[in-house]
């Protein structure tokens, strides 16, 4: 019941926010539109019916050569009844997505990882920089056009060339 209430609240506040709503292998899933994305996520976290207070993970999926190129998937969990919700958002290449790190603190590093490995930038992120690779690393490893063996595997490795954040 309460899940329906949440969806209704969003429908009432932002009529065009939810593009699609479905169930995939018993998992609730909604697709959101880009405008009003941040506000909708805030409603999902702050509502009193079923607050999705735990952001489990954020991931990007590269569907090249499709446009928009990326799918961003947010996995949310409510500690009220331990139910999951998957939120999906489509993203163009190079397009900035509003950061949700001011809603869930766990989004801070999760977004940095998506930025680092998938190359999706986030706007209003407090500290958006690479997290697993280093500062002058070229490319984004999890994109489909990034070769498995890396870009300069045939050159000798020189640690002196690595710059890192200070």
């Amino acid at each position, binding site marked *: 019941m309460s899940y329906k209430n949440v969806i209704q609240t969003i429908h009432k506040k932002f009529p065009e926010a939810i593009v699609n709503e479905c169930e995939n*292998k018993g998992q609730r899933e909604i697709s959101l539109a880009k405008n009003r994305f941040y506000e909708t996520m805030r409603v999902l976290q702050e509502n009193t019916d079923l607050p999705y207070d*735990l952001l489990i993970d954020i*991931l990007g999926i590269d569907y090249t050569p499709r446009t928009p190129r990326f799918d961003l998937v947010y996995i949310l969990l409510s500690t009220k009844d331990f139910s999951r919700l998957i939120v999906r958002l489509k993203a163009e290449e190079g397009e900035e997505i509003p950061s949700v790190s001011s809603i869930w603190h*766990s989004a801070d*590093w*999760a977004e940095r990882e998506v930025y680092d490995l998938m190359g999706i930038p986030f706007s209003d992120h407090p500290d958006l920089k690479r*997290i*697993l690779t280093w500062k002058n690393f070229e490319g984004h*490893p999890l994109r489909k056009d990034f070769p498995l063996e890396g870009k300069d595997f045939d050159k000798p490795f020189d640690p002196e060339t690595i710059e890192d954040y200070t």
Partner: protein
Amino acid sequence: MAESKKMYLNMGPHHPATHGVLRIELELDGETIVNATPRIGYLHRGIEKLAENRNYQQIIPLTDRLDYASASANNMGYCVTVENLMGTEVPKRAQYLRVIMAELARIMGHHLWIGTHALDIGAMSVVFYAFRDREMIMDINEEIAGYRLTPTFFRIGGVAHDATPKFIQMVRDFVKWFPKGLDGYHKLLTENKIWTTRTMDIGTISAEEAVNYGFTGPSLRGSGVAYDLRKAFPYSSYDDFDFQIPVGDKGDVYDRYLVRMEEFSQSLKIIDQAIENLPEGPVNVDNPWISNPDLDEVQKDISALIRRFMIHVKGPVAPEAEVYQAVEGAKGELGFYLVGDGSEHPYRLKIRSPCFYLASALPRLMVGHMVADAIAIIGSIDVVLGEIDR
């Protein structure tokens, strides 16, 4: 008036108390931490990228190397996800064997935690007792899988082979013996004055904040949220077993310690029930596209030989679908988001690592405490860098 100056201390990546290659830049005022910046990525092996280029069976050994302290629990997460994607049901006996292996791995991970955590704080002797008991589980792993630390005993659709009578006897012996060992840890630490002084009211985090920082597993339960995937989303027959979820209330280092100590006995309870009620039957799903034929069969039957060859060369094929499945790893919610594209490789495999989020909260836990407490805090959230960096 004396002038106060900030000092910067670089901790790690080669520091024994960081449990791997975690580097933390500490900003100190005297001995108090005013700011902490964790730096990760020293152990990044690109497991997610590698997984996109291997077939489904070949990824299982990679998952062993995520949280190498409790390898079978990672195998469980990955195999359950792939089976969910393919829509196969694993036989009951295999599910029970998996539960035994995963719970033994959880105990093994907690052994490493209690040993190193106590060693970091200065209780030297605990590590010897913990590793003595951990050795017994390593021997069990060796008996059933051949490997000690990373058994890779799981397969898509079941387990590698049936349990031997010796394995069952060894598990029974361990279940019988381990309560005594656990009692020893309690005697050494739980009411030890030095231990309680070092751990109580250190690194306290409230339930709301822990949830907001993405805590899961024993660290979240230490703050009082009874979220355990074995109860919330039962997988692999966990609803057959009777066990409790221990929770703390304050959310400090000591509470997280008590929760993990209780998890030892709850895991032991599950293993005891699983080994005593081990059902009869096959240990692999009866699906020629997924499971390996028996070696006996291979020697007599040419079609079984071809099938075995094809399973190993090509591997099982997953449908075009997406699935998120998570299990309770030793450190928290270990999730796998798997996108299949109708081929024998995953299109995308995202590993939700619990330690990644636990490490991101280190500044929040450390600020305001002394340098020596930083060590206690890292130990209490039990990070394993293989899982953070993937």
